């Protein structure tokens, strides 16, 4: 193919056409994404990165309620993705078909653990810990204990209902939530591998 020019003039190497054709995929409309709800596992991981940065920016501006609210979802997404990756999911797999089987499994394998809804951070931490232990791949004890300590703390200080709160969440509380979620984010590979 070589250099392709218009009107006889050569383009620079930086604009050289690639020797393969790049398929053009129309981006999914926002309305369709909203309707479909959760997407792929890889969407969760990217969203978790972005919401973490959003929370950091809110924290820097002193918006405690917003920062705590947003960062809680990062914990939820990372714990769900850790459970599903440990179960053998690939990044390109859909999330929603894995939710009900995980819930049913937990009802049977851990009848004492309450399930509030699919946003329940403590529930997902228990599922991860128990699944790993049952398959003989328990988390190292210090990390397992820290995960549960953090999940309990987030369970007490975060819920999706924070969206109805005004400026009631102190910056100290938000910072604590942020630090807890930062631990989960840092240890995410350890949680599922």
């Amino acid at each position, binding site marked *: 193919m070589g250099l392709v020019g218009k009107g006889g003039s050569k383009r620079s190497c930086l604009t050289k056409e690639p020797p393969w054709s790049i398929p053009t995929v129309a981006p999914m409309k926002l309305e369709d994404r909203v309707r479909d709800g959760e997407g792929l596992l890889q969407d969760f991981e990217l969203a978790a990165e972005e919401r973490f940065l959003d929370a950091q920016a809110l924290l820097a501006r002193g918006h405690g309620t917003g920062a705590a609210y947003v960062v809680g979802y990062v914990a939820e997404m990372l714990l769900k993705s850790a459970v599903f990756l440990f179960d*053998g999911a690939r990044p390109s797999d859909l999330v929603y*078909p894995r939710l009900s*089987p995980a819930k*049913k*499994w937990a009802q*049977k394998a851990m009848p004492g653990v309450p399930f509030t809804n699919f946003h329940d951070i403590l529930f997902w931490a228990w599922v991860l810990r128990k699944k790993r232990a049952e398959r003989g791949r328990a988390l190292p004890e210090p990390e397992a204990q820290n995960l549960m300590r953090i999940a309990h703390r987030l369970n007490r200080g975060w819920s999706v209902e924070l969206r109805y709160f005004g400026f009631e969440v102190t910056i100290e509380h938000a910072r604590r939530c942020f630090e807890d979620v930062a631990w989960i984010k840092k240890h995410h590979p350890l949680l599922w591998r």
Partner: protein
Amino acid sequence: MPVVTRSLHETVTNDELKQRLIAEWKNGDAREPRPTIIQETDAQGNIVHIYVVWSDWGDCDQRMRSELITDAYWEVFDDKALALTVAMGLTPEEAKRMGFPLS
């Protein structure tokens, strides 16, 4: 403008869908249209993924389909269902659109 009368009565209820799935797993439901159930196993032979392609899913949303499949499967197989990690319901049109293999 012509008069249009629409029934708000659900033609197929969620419980009916679940009962028909249970019947299909137990002895093959005689009622048409029957679901096509695809079960994938892990290295130990445990069923880990279930896909149900069925024209009767109709307006049932995807999360509900997943829940109905999971509940029905657990009701029939009990502890054997512990290995289940994916439950997904698709209409034949959706399966075709996704290029989902039916065998």
